[in-house]
């Protein structure tokens, strides 16, 4: 057994132990002061273009598309509600969802990055949850990376002519899960394990939270479908005005 294999074996055992003991899980945003300053700035700068385009789009909605303004408010409110609910999961710990899928499907990624930023600032300032220094990293994972995957899957589903509701469910659920994958990659970049480096670190963080997040991602998908179905029934003109595709 060479050194690499040993490392892998150790790491696998570590992972198994982690899974077996169902360690109380950290599965939320990156906490205040938990990223080195360089990474805080790096992720913050990466968010800026998205925030800029989101700002322009929201300004356009406020000035010219008053009807979709209500939908925008509702997408924001949905993120507010969903990300404030801590929900128990099968691993015996709690976590919360992101709720960004709906805003993404209705308005696209840049607008969602702004909505997520509002929620994150609220939580960082008032709830000591997440943080001001890690705002950029958290906004990147929750408001940009997750939504990008959601949008890609949603468009792919449309191309493949999947049933609209099933499509939204899958896109929202996997987008939620992806957000936490990105969070663990961000943590791993900042804290590569001494034994095994970056990848081992990624798997440690993933192993810590992924099992918790999977059921919650499904819950998020279901809740998004509920709201979309409600909107389809009662807010047809608004959805038409933002060219939402609800034929199938």
């Amino acid at each position: 057994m060479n050194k690499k294999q040993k490392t892998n074996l150790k790491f696998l055992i570590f992972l198994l132990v982690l899974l077996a003991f169902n360690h109380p899980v950290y599965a939320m945003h990156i906490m205040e002061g938990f990223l080195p300053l360089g990474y805080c700035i790096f992720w913050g700068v990466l968010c800026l273009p998205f925030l800029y385009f989101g700002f322009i789009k929201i300004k356009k909605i406020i000035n010219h598309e008053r009807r979709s303004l209500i939908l925008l408010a509702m997408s924001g409110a949905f993120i507010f509600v969903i990300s404030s609910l801590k929900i128990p999961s099968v691993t015996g710990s709690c976590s919360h969802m992101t709720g960004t899928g709906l805003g993404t499907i209705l308005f696209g990624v840049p607008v969602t990055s702004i909505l997520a930023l509002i929620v994150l600032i609220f939580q960082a300032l008032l709830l000591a949850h997440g943080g001001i220094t890690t705002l950029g990293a958290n906004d990147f994972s929750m408001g940009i990376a997750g939504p990008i995957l959601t949008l890609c899957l949603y468009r792919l589903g449309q191309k493949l002519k999947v049933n609209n509701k099933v499509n939204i469910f899958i896109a929202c659920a996997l987008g939620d899960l992806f957000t936490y994958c990105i969070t663990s990659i961000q943590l791993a970049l900042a804290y590569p394990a001494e034994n095994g480096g970056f990848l081992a670190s990624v798997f440690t963080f993933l192993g810590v939270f992924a099992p918790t997040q999977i059921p919650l991602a499904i819950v998020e998908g279901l809740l998004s479908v509920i709201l979309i179905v409600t909107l389809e029934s009662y807010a047809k003109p608004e959805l038409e005005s933002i060219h939402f595709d609800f034929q199938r």
Partner: protein
Amino acid sequence: MSRKNKLIIIGCVIGVIILIVFPLIYKAGSEFSGSDDSGSEAVSQVLDREYIPWFVPIMEQFLGGEIPGELESLLFCIQTGIGVGILAFFIGLYYERYQLAATKRGRERYKEYIRDYEDSEKT
């Protein structure tokens, strides 16, 4: 709302309830904590030493310590409340409009409303 949509919503709600209640039974007796402490534990595990955050949350600086549990749940409730308030208000608004559209007078009002919007968007 069509019968099919109603069934979808009922199905989704049942699914959500099952997914939330199941862990409580399956893992009865565990703490269901999601605290930030376990986050620092995860980082410490990887680093093999205690990690000390270099920045303290503003609320904690202000209060001179951790936010008390009750206060924290209050603040989380406020967040939920704001969100639910906005959602419920607008869904109520849309629902009422939908109901009105079932009457003749309501339909006329509804058409006016749509026309007004389209005019305002043109200008």
